[in-house]
């Protein structure tokens, strides 16, 4: 690879370059500002928070001002999916950064913010990858900072247990993914997307083609850990319970973004990118039932288990499992669906889900304090009297999670419904039925939480003043979820644009995408 090609590759990932550069600055500078005993200038976290937000906004500026380019041979691609996921990640990154800002003590603030930025960069690298190796590096760039981020803020047993659990299972999932990649490489002889797609499409993999279903199954299994799909979800409740609210919020969202982005990429590589000539029909037949099964299991188990929880973080963990199930419905439908394609509905849902789940955790961040953390539903009793604004925001988020109007969650679910129903097969219709059933079940536990906030007597969480950054994050999420309901068009267009690019063949035309983008 010559200097020229490196240069052009870097041009494709400028936002990530900005993020990583900031990470370096923070890691280098932070140790000099903290004494050996851990003492530091009080309030230094505000500076780190501002720096982190600044880095994200610079990255966002680059994101908005880079034009999509046709798929190339380099390590990165820049298509509609990248555009969509990158924007989503940066926006949610800013919100998580605000939550983290008010929950992490001064001495660790720099490291935590830096780790968050590294995770964001990792998510973006994953989706921008044009090569299995880069994809894997992106995934690891998400995982490794996550371990540290989970371990850093707290020293309690629970928290350490959570970290270890996450660490071991994450390693395991990475190994599965890697094994799948290796088989894919073995079958096709290349790690480059275009190469794989061409080999598979041309049926050139020959007798090694039996490896493909196994490879895809392993990759789906490995990535299922990220999106907490049942039966790969069991670490989630424990890890959520042992993590501070901002980390739980991050875990409920960013691994899902990265997991679904990677799944879309890999599956479209073997399914949608390729004309189903000959033996590859088999692969399509295999993947779809597999995904449908995952979706059904994930929805059902997530919702039914959430019914029994009293710990809020555990409940939200199961809720995040259930929502992964809804999104898997979108993935199962894929690019079928005459009204709304499954992938577009999935991406849209990713945004609306992110807003509401982060909103819940942002409110929890805002009202819990070190001396009186909000752990169980009983801790929320009386909250509506003492924190009326926070209670209202929490209620909006929970109604949104339950899929009630007027909220982004409603539009998101509606899109998934339409996608599943318009797919035309009985599988799609059954998935829609099961989704409706699950929406009803889920309403029960969200309603229980709302009842705890509004109807239960109690003294409520006692924080007198909500920390401004977390409160701001909560307000942003509340406004956003209502805004997604009223004006969903832009996000939907962005989600649609992606489908076009992913579906066209690797050599296909992205200029139409380019024009639609610049026209906006």
């Amino acid at each position, binding site marked *: 690879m010559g200097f020229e090609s490196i240069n052009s590759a870097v041009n494709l990932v400028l936002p990530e370059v900005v993020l990583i550069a900031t990470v370096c600055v923070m890691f280098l500078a932070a140790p000099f500002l903290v004494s050996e005993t851990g003492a530091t200038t009080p309030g230094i976290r505000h500076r780190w928070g501002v720096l982190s937000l600044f880095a994200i906004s610079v990255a966002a500026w680059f994101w908005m001002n880079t034009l999509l380019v046709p798929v190339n041979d380099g390590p990165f691609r820049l298509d509609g999916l990248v555009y969509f996921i990158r924007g989503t990640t940066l926006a949610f990154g800013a919100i998580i950064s605000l939550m983290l800002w008010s929950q992490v003590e001064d001495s660790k603030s720099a490291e935590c913010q830096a780790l968050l930025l590294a995770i964001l960069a990792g998510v973006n690298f994953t989706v921008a990858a044009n090569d299995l190796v880069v994809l894997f590096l992106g995934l690891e760039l998400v995982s490794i900072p996550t371990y540290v981020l989970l371990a850093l803020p707290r020293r309690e047993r629970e928290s350490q247990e959570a970290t270890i659990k996450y660490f071991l299972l994450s390693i395991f999932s990475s190994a599965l993914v890697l094994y799948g990649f290796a088989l894919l490489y073995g079958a096709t002889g290349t790690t480059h997307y275009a190469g794989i797609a061409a080999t598979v499409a041309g049926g050139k993999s020959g007798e090694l083609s039996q490896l493909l279903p196994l490879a895809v199954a392993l990759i789906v299994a490995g990535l299922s850990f990220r999106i907490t799909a049942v039966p790969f979800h069991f670490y989630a409740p424990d890890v959520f319970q042992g993590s501070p609210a901002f980390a739980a919020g991050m875990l409920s969202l960013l691994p899902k973004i990265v997991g679904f982005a990677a799944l879309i990429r890999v599956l479209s590589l073997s399914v*949608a990118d390729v*004309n*189903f000539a000959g033996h590859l029909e088999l692969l399509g037949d295999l993947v779809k039932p597999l995904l449908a099964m995952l979706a059904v299991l994930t929805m059902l188990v997530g919702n039914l288990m959430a019914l029994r929880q009293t710990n809020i973080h555990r409940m939200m963990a199961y809720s995040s499992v259930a929502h992964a199930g809804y999104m898997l419905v979108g993935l199962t439908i894929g*690019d*079928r*669906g*005459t*009204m*709304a*394609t499954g992938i577009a509905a999935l991406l849209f849902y990713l945004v609306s889900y992110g807003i509401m789940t982060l909103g819940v955790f942002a409110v929890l961040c805002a009202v819990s304090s070190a001396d009186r953390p909000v752990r169980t539903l009983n801790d929320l009793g009386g909250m509506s*009297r003492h924190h*009326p604004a926070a209670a209202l925001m929490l209620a909006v988020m929970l*109604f949104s999670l339950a899929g*009630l*109007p*007027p909220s982004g969650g*409603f*539009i998101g679910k*509606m899109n998934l*419904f*339409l996608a599943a*129903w*318009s797919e*035309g097969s009985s599988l799609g219709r059954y998935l*829609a*039925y099961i989704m*409706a*059933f699950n*929406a*009803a079940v889920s*309403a*029960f536990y969200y*309603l*229980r939480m709302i*009842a705890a906030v*509004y*109807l239960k007597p109690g003294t409520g969480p006692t924080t007198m003043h909500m920390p401004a950054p977390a409160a701001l994050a909560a307000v942003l999420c509340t406004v956003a979820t209502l805004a997604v309901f*009223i004006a*969903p*068009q832009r996000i*939907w267009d962005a989600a*649609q644009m992606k*489908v*076009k690019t992913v*579906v*066209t063949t690797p050599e296909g035309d992205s200029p139409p995408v380019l024009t639609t983008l610049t026209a906006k």
Partner: protein
Amino acid sequence: MIGFLIALMILPLATAVLLMLFRDSAGQNTARWMALIGSVVTLCVAVTTVAKYQELQLGTATQPVQPRVEWRHTWLTYSPQRTEHLGQVASQSISPAHVKLEFYFGADGVSLSLIALTALLTISAVLISWETIKERSADFYVCLMVLEAGLIGVFLAFDLLLFYVFFEFTLIPMFFMVGLWGGSQRNHAAIKFFLYTLVGSLITLLGLAALVIMAVQGGVATPFSIPALASHFTAHPMEYHIQVILFLSLAAGFIVKVPLFPFHTWLPLAHVEAPTAGSVMLAGVMLKLGSYGFFRICLPIYRQACEQVGLPLIATLSVIGIVYGSFCALSQRDIKKLVAYSSVAHLGFCMLGMFALNAEGVTGSLLQMINHGLSTGALFLLVGMIYDRYHTRQLDDLGGLAQRIPLITVAMVFTSMASIGLPGLNGFVGEMLSLAGMFKIMPLYAVIGTSGVVLGAWYMLTMVQQGFFGPLREPHDVHDPVQDMSPREACAFLPLAAMCVWIGVAPQPFIELMKPDIEAVVADYDVSNVRPLSGSLTLTEVDRP
């Protein structure tokens, strides 16, 4: 005109927002005055809108569902991408740019009358809560105003999804009203009410999604617009079995909301636990969302299914509801529960008329919706007044109240008469028309239904006789001198009573207001013409080819 429609929804919302902004600084007094002013202004706008609407001198409608004034704004455009490898699937999809959700607000005579009812009842609800809601009163009025906005939104929505959005949304303020200001079992009642209706609505949502997909495949340009759907499916009916499935799934949510037997079990509980204002709004308007949904969506779109499945099914459930609800009401000792069960019976009349599927029946049904809103609303107001004085609603503890509170007694007797359907009062007109419509096609149901009128007189008069006449019987722990109806309470009650008399004496203007729209909906039903009167005494007669 459009401005008025938008204002109708914005005004209660704006009041709610103002209340919320000043909830800390404003005391109970400011909050209730703000709510009162907001609701009175809304009513004024509603009345003006009706007056202006009548000035328009509209003729008969040309489409089954036709908003006479409308405002549309694109909400979300689905533009499915055609992809090369999808082949046959892509060819099915129609020109993508047209598939869109809309903010499609409009009004016709039916929706305007229901909006006026909503606005009127809201004022009564504010006035009756004046003294009784002491805790978090600002929040209470916020809920009430948001509820009003949501209810008006349902009646204004002509986009399928928008309709559903408002339909669902009204659950939220009602949940809080029951849950926060209700009686001793309020948590349980609120959650049961919410989940029960939510499950029904989700089945409705599935039906809506399927309907839209059907419309897209049928080439409807705007598959979410109710008027377009109605016109299309009137001209090109769906296959019969698909119609039946979609009708039933759509009906699920509406049946629970109405509620028809046997899906009524949430209603008595929610009513008993709700604060008076909540009961008034719940019985007065929210139950009507179900029957309005039938009228607006099911009747014009699933014609065959309504005739062949809806008619026998709903009519059967309705008559069971009428008889069963009446007997349940008869055996209640709690006055509020009695009124709640009487709602089940009265809504039975309403649905019976609706599924007569002829102009008389549907007109009667819609009048019955308004009448039930007025008379049951008034009954709940009076029950609330008694509860405020005695802190009990049990007939065992109360008796001979006429000696203590003569004015309330007069009001109670009057409202009971309206509710029973005494000629000259509103209940008579609606029940009469509903039953007449049903009698034309299925006399048996009409006959059984008529027994409901007798039963209604029985339980209502029993309640009045036991509670208000005879020897005085009061709870022992009431020490304050019991006051008769105060001017404020009179202000809450009298408008409803006046409307009861007006509709009873001169129903023609109300019928005229709704007539063109009703006729447009039932125009393509020929049930009444075909069926001989004598032959329809058996249920099997319904399955005509």
